[in-house]
């Protein structure tokens, strides 16, 4: 089967290339017509490239729910300049090569006007290349890998990023530690890092060391383990000896559960545990640990009790039966961004929409829409800026994450203070 598919791939590529040439000329023809009379009935096509099959399909489903929800809202209001929105879905199935061919299909055959994607940064990168090549504006709602907007990608001026970067996630964890003293009255001065030996752990360690000085935090130690550990008591004892004010961690779910259980067994209660999502925000984390999970905090992109997100979450839940998550909230926002940009540009011409996106500033609320539902109040794609010593391009520098803490078995937003309605539980009860 694989061999057969491999044989088919060049064929498919050739076909899309052909279609690409044909589509290109058609595109200009349509562009010519746009100035004519019959445009108002035509839909505006948003291309999406997410995993709809394979083991990442569940993630893709949440993203597409957010997009559909926004499209419905906008169409109910009469669309954009009288034109309805239409979502054209591509499926990258978790694979970069598939992502590329899907991007080409959407652009050359479906003639999408703008593009959204993807949730795996490696796929996002190749799709951004294709969009750049064809001049289709693209916003990623959720790809957090720092390097997508670095010096190497400086020339990708059709590519914009809404979500915070990986290193911003970690910077916000440190900001939270610093700010927490306003509520707890106790300053956090020392931190220890507890994490997997694998790449996720190394990334956490790199980012913490990048920002620790800036926030006046001393990293007293790094304790790591091999993923899928049989036992973590040695690691917990090592942390107990280091006795930091706070522990920062990133683990897959089985290790995260074993970690908290072992804390309990070894009778060690760190005052503060802040996780970089991952296993700690897995739904089974709370069900497996029960009350022992109370007090664990984590980075979240969105939480149902965010002061500016509670309302939409209620409506969303009525439609889909599940809470909005970070992915659905961020992709919802991107659709509204495209609306604002297309209105500003006055057309769906790629060049004009790109220019409008670069100049767009959303302050507080969308025109005709809601307040920004994420834990920040401004969206502005900054053309060029400096992040911890390296240049980045066209990121939304106002983006930030929120910190939520498990209280009475549910995630409660505790930071940023202006978006939260719960107080930090300190020290973490863990019972």
């Amino acid at each position, binding site marked *: 089967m694989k061999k057969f598919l491999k044989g088919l791939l060049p064929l498919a590529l050739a076909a899309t290339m052909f279609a690409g040439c044909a589509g290109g000329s058609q595109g200009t023809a349509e562009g010519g017509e746009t100035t004519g009379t019959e445009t108002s009935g035509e839909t505006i096509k948003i291309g999406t490239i997410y995993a709809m099959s394979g083991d990442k399909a569940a993630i893709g489903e949440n993203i597409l729910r957010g997009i559909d929800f926004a499209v419905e809202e906008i169409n109910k209001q009469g669309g954009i300049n009288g034109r309805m929105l239409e979502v054209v879905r591509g499926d990258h199935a978790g694979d970069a090569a598939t992502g590329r061919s899907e991007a080409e299909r959407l652009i050359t055959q479906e003639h999408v006007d703008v593009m959204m994607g993807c949730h795996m940064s490696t796929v996002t990168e190749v799709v951004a290349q294709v969009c750049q090549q064809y001049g289709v504006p693209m916003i990623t709602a959720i790809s957090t890998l720092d390097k997508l907007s670095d010096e190497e990608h400086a020339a990708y001026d059709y590519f914009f990023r809404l979500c915070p970067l990986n290193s911003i996630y970690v910077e916000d964890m440190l900001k939270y530690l610093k700010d927490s003293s306003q509520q707890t009255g106790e300053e956090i001065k020392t931190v220890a890092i507890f994490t997997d*030996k694998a790449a996720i752990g190394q990334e956490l360690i790199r980012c913490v060391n990048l920002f620790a000085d800036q926030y006046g935090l001393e990293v007293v130690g790094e*304790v*790591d*383990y*091999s993923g*899928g*550990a*049989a*036992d973590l*008591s*040695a*690691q917990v*004892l*090592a942390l*107990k*000896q280091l006795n930091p004010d706070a522990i920062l961690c990133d683990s897959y*779910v*089985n290790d995260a*559960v*074993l970690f908290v*259980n072992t804390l*309990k*067994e*070894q*009778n060690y209660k760190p005052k503060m545990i802040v996780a970089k999502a991952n296993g700690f925000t*897995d739904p*089974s984390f709370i*069900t*497996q640990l*029960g009350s*022992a999970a109370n007090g664990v905090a984590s980075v979240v992109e969105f939480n149902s009790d965010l002061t500016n997100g509670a309302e939409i979450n209620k409506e969303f839940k009525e439609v889909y039966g599940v809470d909005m998550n970070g992915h659905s909230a961020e992709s919802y926002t991107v659709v509204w961004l495209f609306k604002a940009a297309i209105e500003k540009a006055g057309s769906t011409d790629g060049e004009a929409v790109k220019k409008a996106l670069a100049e767009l500033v959303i302050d507080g609320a969308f025109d005709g829409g809601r307040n920004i539902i994420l834990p920040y109040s401004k969206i502005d794609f900054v053309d060029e800026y400096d992040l911890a010593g390296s240049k980045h391009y066209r990121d939304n520098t106002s983006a930030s994450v929120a910190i939520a803490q498990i209280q009475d078995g549910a995630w409660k937003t505790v930071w940023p203070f202006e978006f939260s309605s719960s107080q930090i539980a300190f020290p973490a009860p863990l019972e």
Partner: protein
Amino acid sequence: MDVLLQAIVNGILLGGFYALMGMGQNIIFGVMKIVNFCHGEMLMVGMYLTYMLYTYAGIDPYLALPLVALIMFFLGAVIQHTLITPSLKTKSFTNLLFLTVGLGLLLSNGALVLFGSDYKSIRTSYSQTTIPIGPVSVALPRLISFCVLIVVTIALFTFLKYSTVGKQIRAVSQNPVGAEVCGINVKRIYLLTYGLGIALAGIAGCLLTQFYSIFPTAGAGFGFRALIVVVVGGLGSIPGAFFAGILLGLLEQMSALFISPSYSDMIVFITFIVILVVRQLIIMRRK
């Protein structure tokens, strides 16, 4: 000092669990001279069995222990009868190696299909209980598992030493042909032995549910340590497995405490290799 004491206690309790894992592997290896590469997966099957008995029948994990052991014994006996006995005839080690490895893959993928990849656990009122003894804190489930280990060790030791079946098992382990000549049903002894080994893995799995998550690859890390226990403790020796397990647990904890937790796995495996090489040298010198 407190930390050292705590690390020693942790090492002994953890090692006790490794010993229990190694015990089953050891019996199988000692009698049948085959390495049971699916021992870790059998542990996982024991965990899911306990989970099902708890969720669907409401049986407390510790009360389910004899039942799990019994079911696992029959599972082991069936596998021995249908798969391993025919393979033993071929006298091919690679055949058995692939058979048990393949069986392990089958079991973990079967669990993936049946139960999904999400992590389950059994939370009882006592699973997070700890007992403070001076400066040291001891988790109740780990203490219970250590007590079970002691009971199992003594029971196995007396069973093999004094009972008729135990004597037959030892006879077969020393010389299967001789034993057969004396009228011992070797096939039946193999059936018993493999069943017993798997039952021990099931007991370990049942106990493990109280301090570890249940998922299809849960047994992998433990299966490997069971092998180390067998090799270090000496083939077929019950007290050997007991002490080797505890030694392994202590070694992990001490190397983490005095060197770094990052290197404790590495140090364990280096020690394992050193022991293998030294033993080989001693055997060669004797010859």
